[in-house]
C-alpha cells in the first residue's frame, strides 16, 4: 500500500490556525471527520502519547500517532502551520509540518507500523520540508507523496 492512497485531500489542511500543542492536536483530529465523542477520546490518547515524549522528530516535523478504539481503520491527516510553533520537538525547533496517524487496536492488514516508519522516512528526506512549504493545494501534497514516498 502506497502512502498516497491512504490520504485524502479532505484530510490535508495547509493553514492550521491553532497555536498551542493541544489545539493543534484537536485541529488535526478534526480533519479525520470522526464524531464528537470519538474526537474527545482520541485527543486524550494522543495527548497521553505526547506526554511520554514529543512526537516532534526534528527539522520542523511532528508525527502524532496512536492506536485507539475510536477508529475502525487506519486514518491519516496532514496539517501545515505556516511559520511553525513550539511542539517540544527533540531539536527544540518550531514545527511546521504535522502528520497524524491513528490506527485501530487490531488491524487485519497490519499497516500501522509500516506506515509510521514510511512517514518518518519520508519526513527525514532533506528535500521534504522545503517541498512541503511550496505546496499551495492539497492535491499537490498528494502528488509529492506519489513522487517521494518510500514504497
Amino acid at each position: 500500500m502506497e502512502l498516497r492512497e491512504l490520504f485524502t485531500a479532505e484530510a490535508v489542511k495547509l493553514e492550521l490556525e491553532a497555536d498551542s500543542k493541544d489545539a493543534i492536536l484537536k485541529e488535526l483530529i478534526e480533519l479525520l471527520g470522526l464524531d464528537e465523542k470519538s474526537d474527545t477520546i482520541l485527543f486524550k490518547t494522543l495527548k497521553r502519547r505526547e506526554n511520554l515524549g514529543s512526537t516532534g522528530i526534528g527539522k520542523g516535523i511532528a508525527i502524532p500517532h496512536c492506536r485507539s478504539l475510536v477508529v475502525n481503520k487506519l486514518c491519516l491527516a496532514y496539517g501545515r502551520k505556516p511559520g511553525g510553533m513550539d511542539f517540544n520537538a527533540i531539536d527544540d525547533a518550531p514545527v511546521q509540518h504535522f502528520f497524524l496517524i491513528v490506527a485501530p487496536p487490531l488491524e487485519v492488514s497490519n499497516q500501522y507500523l509500516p506506515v509510521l516508519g514510511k512517514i518518518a522516512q519520508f519526513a527525514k528526506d532533506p528535500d521534504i520540508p522545503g517541498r512541503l512549504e511550496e505546496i499551495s493545494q492539497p492535491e499537490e501534497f498528494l502528488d509529492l507523496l506519489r513522487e517521494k514516498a518510500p514504497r
Partner: protein
Amino acid sequence: MTATSRMHPQLVLLLELQDLRSQHRELGEEEGAGEVERAHFHIDLEKARSELEDKIQELEASLNPVVRKRYQRVLPNRDRVVVPVINGVCYGCFVSIPTATVGDEGAHQELQGCENCGRFIYILS
C-alpha cells in the same frame, strides 16, 4: 452539552483505559512498535511503560465499584476488555449483537456489554 458529557462517564474511562493498555502493550514489543518508538522518537521504553502503568492503575481505581468488579472479572483471561462493535458484530468474539442493542442513537451513550463474551462494547458508526 458536549458529546462526552452525554456519553456514560464510565464508558469514557473504559475507553481511555483500553487505549492506554494498547499503548502499554505496544511499547513492550521488542521488534514492533517499541522499536519504532525508540528508533524514530527516542522514547525510553521502560520509563514510558512504567508511567503508563501508573496511569492505568489510577484510572482503574477511579472506576465505580460495580464497573470495576465487572472489568476485573473480564480482564484476567482477556486482554481486551472494551471492544468495538462494527456493523453489528462484537469485535471481541465476532458474534452478532442484537439490533435492539446497537440500533438507536441513545444506545451509543449507554454502558453495555456483549451478551456472548461479557466484554464492554463501544458502538462505532
